[in-house]
């Protein structure tokens, strides 16, 4: 049991050398550590077996090398990723059969395995050895992800070596709860789940409630299909989330916390469960944390696949074991939440920001980003883009820079058409507006939202009407049915869009589509319904011509809409889609 800050420091000093070694780049020395990414995407491409094979190989040859499993490096498209230290030499797409080769050539003979290095396709095809030299990392600013891909997420000592739980120890020893709330408010941190409400304010509402029982809930119901920030954080740096929750608990006077996480993320669940056990064993969760009189317990509440559960009142119902149907607010959860007790619900990324804010001070955090959007934001890049994966950038960076400088742009020969932000609740930013700085207000002005951080790149092979239809079908599937505008309205939107993509749409339908979309937006009960029609409204605004071509010429310029393919002789994209 760790009883004080100095005991925590002792653990840090013990494990610091092995971590420090991983932070140097470009120095080639006899390898001592091999890091293997074992987050979902890399495991799916064989990272797990690779980890075991490397371990076996090292053991069989009696080498003095540590094989470490880590969280996501962000380079998911080229996984499984292996990094050899010291020097941070990054190998991509490493397969099981490459393991003995890496061991022989790099570890034993101290030579870099050229053919497994990253090939900079968009920069002339040179091979890059050192991880931190990759253009993918150059423009990133990794604060929340600083430990992801660096430490073993299943070893609490490595987190402590990175100043883990120091913020909690400091807060418990020297801060009043009100000071914590104040610091978080002054930092300017806003919710990373989508709406961007000021976190400190949310905390202050719950702190002001006079109740012996309060709750902290971590919202890990990452519902946006095509987004994987929360999953990666929970898998790669679970203790940061736990520490953030404990600090939040201390600030508002809560003794219990729940992590609501999707059952579709079994690895995240496993890592969090393990992290909770380890933190409890060291006395960093439980009773009298770090010798103080603060008690805080964390448990998991499993989500079971319902997009609406990302909405906080629906999440609360689901966390209590009911159907996840939202209710009218107010009362807000800060007044009446879990079991009608004051509850704060914060997103995974929001909570993972908290320990760093406490450690470095709110001013340090507020110095990053724009006037109203502070700090950094994690995005998951997917769709028609070369470097798919997970990135963290300072707020205010342009969407263009993210897509081209970090993401490497679209595949060769293709042209970016739009970028969907905010998932099913967001909208499409057209290619000619990609200069927009990434902050809450700027994106809102374009008719989309920051959302939780999913970025889907669409190119000339994607039909925007079809994309709108895709999102409406998703919303129709996921509507809980509690209110009519969403339950019935979205289905009607799907119907109209199907008519249009089938070539049977009229100008009248286009008008109806827009009117109905506004009705659903204005009259729905919860956030899901109120934002469900956004993809329709934003594509109608920016890609009206594409709708017109479908209606007037019965043609799908991208060659996606199957029933319109007959009118499409000569379009190569259409042929690809026929089978």
């Amino acid at each position, binding site marked *: 049991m760790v009883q004080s800050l100095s005991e925590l420091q002792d653990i840090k000093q013990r494990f610091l050398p092995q971590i420090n070694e991983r932070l140097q780049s470009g120095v080639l020395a006899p390898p001592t550590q091999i890091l293997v990414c074992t987050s979902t995407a890399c495991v799916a491409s064989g990272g797990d077996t690779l980890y075991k094979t490397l371990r076996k190989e090292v053991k069989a040859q009696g080498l003095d090398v540590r094989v470490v499993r880590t969280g996501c490096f962000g380079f998911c498209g080229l996984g499984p990723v292996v990094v050899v230290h010291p020097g941070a030499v990054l190998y991509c797409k490493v397969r099981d059969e490459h393991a003995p080769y890496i061991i022989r050539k790099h570890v034993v003979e101290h030579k870099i395995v050229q053919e497994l290095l990253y090939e900079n396709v968009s920069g002339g095809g040179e091979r890059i050895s050192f991880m931190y030299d990759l253009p993918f990392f150059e423009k990133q600013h990794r604060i929340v992800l600083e430990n992801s891909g660096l430490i073993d997420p299943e070893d609490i000592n490595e987190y402590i070596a990175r100043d883990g739980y120091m913020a909690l120890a400091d807060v418990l020893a020297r801060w009043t709860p009100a000071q914590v709330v104040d610091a978080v408010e002054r930092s300017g941190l806003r919710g990373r789940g989508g709406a961007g409400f000021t976190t400190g304010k949310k905390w202050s509402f719950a702190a002001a409630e006079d109740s012996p029982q309060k709750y902290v809930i971590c919202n890990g119901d990452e519902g946006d299909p095509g987004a994987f920030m929360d999953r990666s954080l929970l898998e790669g740096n679970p203790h940061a989330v736990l520490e953030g929750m404990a600090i939040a608990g201390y600030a508002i006077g809560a003794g219990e916390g729940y992590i609501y996480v999707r059952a579709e*993320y079994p690895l995240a669940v496993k890592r969090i469960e393990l992290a909770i056990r380890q933190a409890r064993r060291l006395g960093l969760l439980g009773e009298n944390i770090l010798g103080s009189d603060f008690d805080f317990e964390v448990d998991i509440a499993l989500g079971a696949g319902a997009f609406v559960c990302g909405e906080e009142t629906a999440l609360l119902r689901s966390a209590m074991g009911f159907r996840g149907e939202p209710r009218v607010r107010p009362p807000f959860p800060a007044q009446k939440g879990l079991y009608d007790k004051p509850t704060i619900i914060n997103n995974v990324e929001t909570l993972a920001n908290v320990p760093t804010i406490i450690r470095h001070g709110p001013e340090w955090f507020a110095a990053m980003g724009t006037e109203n959007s502070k700090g950094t934001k994690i995005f998951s890049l997917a769709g028609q883009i070369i470097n798919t994966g997970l990135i963290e950038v300072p707020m205010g960076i342009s969407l263009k820079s993210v897509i081209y400088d970090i993401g490497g742009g679209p595949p060769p020969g293709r042209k970016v058409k739009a970028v*969907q932000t905010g998932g099913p609740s967001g909208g499409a930013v057209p290619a000619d507006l990609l200069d927009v700085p990434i902050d809450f207000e700027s994106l809102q002005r374009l008719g989309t939202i920051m959302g939780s951080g999913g970025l889907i790149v669409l190119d000339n092979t994607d039909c925007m009407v079809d994309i709108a239809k895709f999102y409406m079908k998703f919303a129709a599937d996921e509507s809980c049915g509690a209110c009519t505008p969403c339950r019935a309205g979205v289905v009607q939107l799907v119907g109209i869009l199907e008519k249009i993509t089938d070539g049977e749409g009229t100008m009248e339908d286009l008008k109806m589509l827009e009117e109905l979309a506004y009705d659903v937006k204005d009259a729905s009960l919860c956030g899901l319904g109120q934002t469900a029609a956004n993809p329709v409204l934003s594509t109608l605004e920016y890609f009206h011509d594409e709708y017109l071509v479908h209606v007037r010429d019965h043609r799908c310029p991208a060659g996606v809409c199957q029933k319109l393919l007959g009118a499409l002789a000569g379009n190569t994209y259409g042929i690809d889609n026929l089978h």
Partner: protein
Amino acid sequence: MAKEKMSVTERHYLTLDKIIERHGDKPGGLIRVLAKAQELFGYLSRDVQIHVAEKMCLPVGHVNGVATFYSQFITSPRGKYTVSVCLGTACYVKNGQDVYNRFRELLGVDENGTTEDRMFTLRSTRCIGACSLAPLIAINDHVHGHLTVDDVAGLLGKYQELEAEEEAADIGAEPVRAAGHQAEVSPPN
């Protein structure tokens, strides 16, 4: 054979009761219990739902309401292999729908349908968060990434072959593991 089957079911019920004892009265306990029940029995049958309701002192209607609300829960038996085709946005824009259609065509079943030989169940699934491998599918827990329409027949063939081998060898144990853990990804650079 029948006797042995009984005992397996009984054992599952015993395990389930322990889970109910452990998680039953925690917030969200019911969802956890149902998830475990599905893991044990493969699906949430009427009997299992009634059992859970009785043990947790809940109306059966409440348990059924929850079991049918969430997409993770299924209330009819599945085939030996569940083919889950991801139709999240990232997979959709990478032609996931075509891959799904190909499975539908080859298996001859619709959404949530099971083949007559009880081998395969087809379902579209929500995003599993490995979007960089899009389009991807999972057969039971085994993920196959960067799939094309042309890969589908071969992939199903592999599982059918495996099944035939298994029958021939008459072992029956751990067929899924034998399929290997390595996902189908494109070769390095």
